[in-house]
């Protein structure tokens, strides 16, 4: 059997969010998420500085409880992605975690690249741009699938 050409690689089906991305895309994204987890766990890394920058503008550091809550939130996202990385059908919660994780990857990667302005953004290398475009495609696919009505929904 072959997939019909017009079907998107990420779509809502009666059993959940079906992911039929090329293997290299899945591998690229999951590897980036795993690497990000290691980087976030490394104190002082650029990724940690970006993703755990103080929330309170009036303080140099967050309340330790806030820091713990933020680290726990990131761990939750990473745990869900790692647990579902090999699956071809995701629950909505898992697909949402993938959307979160890809956002984290983008934020950390661009911090590492020193992208702060639109001018910086336009100056990224072709290789880095290709990576960003892959992540964007995955994100848009996830959003489209998550926001799609269930098959057979008369309101869909």
């Amino acid at each position: 059997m072959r997939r019909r050409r017009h079907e998107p690689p990420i779509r809502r089906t009666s059993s959940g969010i079906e992911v039929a991305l090329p293997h290299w895309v899945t591998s690229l994204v999951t590897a980036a998420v795993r690497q990000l987890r290691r980087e976030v766990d490394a104190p002082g890394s650029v990724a940690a500085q970006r993703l755990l920058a103080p929330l309170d503008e009036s303080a140099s550091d967050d309340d330790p409880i806030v820091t713990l809550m933020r680290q726990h939130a990131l761990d939750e996202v990473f745990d869900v992605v790692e647990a579902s990385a090999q699956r071809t059908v995701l629950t909505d919660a898992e697909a949402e975690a993938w959307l979160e994780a890809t956002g984290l990857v983008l934020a950390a990667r661009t911090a590492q690249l020193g992208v702060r302005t639109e001018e910086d953004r336009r100056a990224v290398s072709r290789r880095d741009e290709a990576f960003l475009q892959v992540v964007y495609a995955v994100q848009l696919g996830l959003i489209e699938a998550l926001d799609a009505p269930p098959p057979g929904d008369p309101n869909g």
Partner: protein
Amino acid sequence: MAHPLLAGAAAPTTVPVADPDVAVGTMPDTTERPSRASDVPYAVFLWNDPVTLMDVVVRVLSKVFGYDGPTAEALMLRAHRDGKAVVWSGDRDQATRYCIRLGRYGLQSTVARA
């Protein structure tokens, strides 16, 4: 006494909604007065970044705050145009919880007095 951030999150539908037309840094109109003097008034600032897709930001604002599409899009555009935008205001603990949720998507936000 338990840390206030460890208490259950307030229902998003009961909190004041930021008016996208309100100037950045001013207190959006509110329909609810926080009960503790130490909790008033704080704002969640969403910061622009040149990388995150607009579609993603709009969806996250809708998901996290329950905003409708036009409101979420207006807030996203304000952040894009002005560098940052007040996307919510209310008590400090809830503002911090919202920042943590936005941070799960890689969006940069901060809490400050409105």
